[in-house]
């Protein structure tokens, strides 16, 4: 496992450097996890891109770095301390100096100058990649192949210039700093894999699940979903509409859901707050719709480019009144893909809004995924109970009862265009026929009908995941991207000889009470690891009546930085000691 990081100013090509490295490493058969530090500004401002490379799956951020590529002294000052004996590759034009007390091998190369020699300063990323490849002791050919495929469309000259820049960096390190790097990755494990972010995986899942209309409004860190679908929708005959705001986005999706098309919107906190009213409409009129909230640091505008999981209360029950909402929480690109399509099946079968609680780290950071996990053409599409004109004729009623009271609360719908299926779908309380009604008896029945539908969710989906012994002394519980950190923490703790399990919630609402109870009945302490200040996962557990004061502990982080496994380990150890002491 090697951790490589590059740092410089925003707009200096940092992103593409990291992208090249992770893509090539993945193609070679390694697993990668790549993540950035960036600000809510376009050019300037410090930014870093870190790539962890290993021959086993990697899902989390860490603190230490093996190779740091610095395009400015600022990067060295801020990050050299992470090196602890590693390699610092710096552009010699900045006259790099190591801060006091930092141990690292400084490798100065005129990155900018070399790039210019090959034609342009923008090729500095290729020089950096080449030099990095040499330090990683990787062969150069896969990088050259990548450059060829990436720039093929731009012509041979461009391909060649980039390849030469890359090789120049590669060879200078091999030549001038031979033996400087002892780093070596274990053998790759070839496989058919992709490098993908949670946002892209979710968009893929939606597309595979039949989403054919996306109405959205740009917002970090959700915009990628709209951008990805903007590229893909023309291929499948669907549409993306950039709306005037999020009020429009959600309502357009509700209108589309009523028409029978699978429609989705994706936003982050501020936009999500604006959607609360529209989501309530979908709950009340029983219209399928899918809403993604890729959470970021709040409240208000907060820190738009920083990680947080603090919209959970708003997502689960932030609308006025009491309408059914289903809330899914993916923790990896694979699960984002799965939720992307399952959300539509749930929305159609239960005729209610389905919300996906994603978060910035899951949304934006790319990681290795088996291609087989993203099998779009194989996805099942379940449109739920929809009646055709023929079926309506068979039914032989003179009115179509859109909101017929049924045992499970689910009533068949008709799509506009279907003969005899006309009805009123309204956000006002209504009778089974759809007609507005203020009758108390009807009201109570309708409330129960709608809320009852949620009981079906756990039948359709496993709400609580678990890895490790069922009678573990400690369970680390998380949601979203934090699952990557607890998984790595689990490995460390197990390595130390502890019996540790991890668990994560796949469905936040309705809360999977039974499944939770069953999973957690034999274990010891529970450490809830979440990225917010008020312990919202804990609050959801309390509301569900499964929070056990004697066993539950909380590890919160709300500084905008994603969890490191080491932090979880540090918080976990005392709990394990307690256990050992008590039982020992």
């Amino acid at each position, binding site marked *: 496992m090697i951790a490589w990081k590059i740092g410089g100013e925003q707009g200096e090509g940092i992103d593409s450097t990291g992208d090249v490295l992770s*893509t090539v490493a993945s193609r070679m058969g390694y697993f990668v996890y790549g993540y950035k530090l960036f600000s809510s500004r376009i050019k300037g401002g410090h930014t870093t891109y870190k790539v962890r490379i290993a021959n086993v799956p990697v899902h989390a951020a860490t603190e230490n770095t093996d190779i740091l590529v610095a395009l400015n002294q600022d990067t060295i000052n801020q990050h050299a301390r992470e090196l602890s004996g590693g390699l610092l590759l710096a552009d010699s034009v900045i006259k790099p100096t190591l801060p006091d007390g930092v141990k690292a091998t400084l490798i100065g190369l005129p990155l900018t100058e070399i790039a210019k020699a090959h034609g342009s300063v923008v090729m500095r990323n290729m020089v950096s990649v080449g030099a990095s490849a040499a330090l990683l002791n990787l062969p150069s050919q896969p990088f050259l192949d990548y450059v060829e495929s990436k720039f093929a469309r731009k012509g041979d000259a461009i391909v060649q210039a980039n390849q030469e820049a890359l090789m120049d960096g590669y060879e200078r390190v091999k030549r001038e700093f031979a033996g400087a790097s002892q780093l070596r990755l274990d053998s790759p494990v070839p496989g058919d894999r*992709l*490098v993908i972010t949670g946002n*892209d995986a979710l968009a*893929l899942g939606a*597309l*595979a*699940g*039949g989403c*054919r*209309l996306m*109405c959205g409004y740009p917002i970090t860190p959700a915009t990628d979903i709209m951008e990805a679908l903007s590229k893909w*929708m*023309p*291929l*499948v*005959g*669907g549409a993306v*509409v950039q*709306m005037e*705001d999020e*009020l*429009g*986005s959600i*309502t*357009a999706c*509700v*209108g*589309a*859901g*009523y*028409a*029978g*098309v699978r*429609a989705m919107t994706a936003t982050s906190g501020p936009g999500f707050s604006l959607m609360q*009213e*529209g989501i309530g*409409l979908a709950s009340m*009129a029983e219209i399928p719709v899918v809403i993604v909230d890729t959470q970021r640091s709040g409240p208000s505008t907060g820190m738009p480019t920083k990680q947080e999981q603090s919209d959970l209360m708003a997502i689960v029950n932030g609308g006025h009144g009491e309408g059914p909402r289903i809330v899914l929480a993916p923790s990896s690109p694979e699960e984002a893909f799965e939720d992307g399509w399952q959300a539509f099946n749930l929305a159609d079968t239960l005729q209610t809004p389905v919300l996906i609680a994603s978060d910035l780290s899951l949304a934006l950071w790319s990681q290795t995924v088996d*291609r087989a996990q993203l099998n*779009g*053409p194989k*996805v099942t*599409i379940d449109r739920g109970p929809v009646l055709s004109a023929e079926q309506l004729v068979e039914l032989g009623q003179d009115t179509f009862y859109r909101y017929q009271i049924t045992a499970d609360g689910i009533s068949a719908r008709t*799509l*506009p*265009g*279907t*003969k*005899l*299926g*006309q*009805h*009123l*779908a*309204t*956000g*006002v309380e209504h009778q089974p026929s759809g*007609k*507005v009604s203020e009758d108390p008896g009807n009201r109570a029945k309708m409330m129960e009908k709608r809320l009852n539908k949620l009981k079906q969710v756990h039948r359709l989906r496993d709400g609580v995941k678990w890895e490790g012994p069922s009678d573990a002394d400690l369970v680390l519980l998380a949601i979203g991207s934090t699952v990557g950190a607890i998984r790595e923490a689990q490995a460390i703790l197990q390595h130390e000889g502890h019996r540790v399990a991890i668990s994560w919630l796949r469905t936040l609402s309705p809360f999977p009470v039974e499944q939770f109870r069953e999973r957690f009945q034999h274990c010891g302490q529970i450490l809830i690891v979440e990225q917010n200040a008020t312990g919202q996962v804990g609050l959801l557990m309390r509301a569900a009546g499964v929070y056990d004061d004697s066993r539950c502990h909380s590890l919160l982080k709300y500084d905008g930085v994603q969890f490191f496994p080491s932090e979880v380990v540090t918080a976990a150890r005392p709990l394990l000691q307690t256990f050992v002491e008590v039982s020992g």
Partner: protein
Amino acid sequence: MATLQEFKTAEKSWWCPGCGDFGVLAAMQKALVAVGAEPSTTAIVAGIGCSGKLGNYINSYNIHVTHGRTLPAALGLKLGNRDLLVLAAGGDGDAYAIGMGHFMHALRRNVNMTYIVMDNHVYGLTKGQTSPTSDSGFKTKTTPKGSIDRPVHPLMLAVSAGATFVAQGFSSWQPQLARLIQQGIEHPGFALINVISPCVTYNKVNTYDWYKKTLTNLDDDPDYDSHNRPQALARLDITDELVTGIVYQEESEPYEAQIPGFRDVPLAHQDWHVDDETWNQILASFD
């Protein structure tokens, strides 16, 4: 072809006797018959207000949304199934207060639908506050000394915002109103029909009689050319928008005809499975 009767529902209307909205409903039903619409392929999106109850009285697919959001819902509905005849309807508050942003953007987007605003210059359902189209000086419970806001001029705004079809009708002038709605439906793009629909309970100023005295009918002016934008703007300015008829219209290609790759088969009816070839093409960018 459906008859007028087929567009009616059994429900008794909740409007006050004499409300202008009865006339709007009747004209809409007539227009639907005139264009040869079918209840099952007609979809109506209604807003919140007295006006918004209109959908309850038409036999068609109806969705009654949140206050001010008819137009985005209608957009989704139409893109979801482009074979539907889509109408949106709501009050002046719904359209020009809380719904103003969507209104402006719907005009420039030009999705094929017809928007009927039932304009009574007042908030009916909430019991008589000023609305965006209320005259300055209009006294209500929120403006006991008279409104100091200057009214919104919806027709002028619509034309300025790039509307391709703008008309105004009067609830009492049924044949013209039905014709305008029909023409709006037949227009291949976004059609605004602002309908003067007096509120007999809360607006004692802009009454039927008042309108009969002040409205002029563009149909009666042989020199008026509804395809002439500057003329339209000038006429609206001079008349303070107290006109009926088609104010402005232009050739238009609806939004949905311009969406890249958008198919003729309605989205709702397509087979949503993605084939292997397309899938692999998409995944290629993540290799």
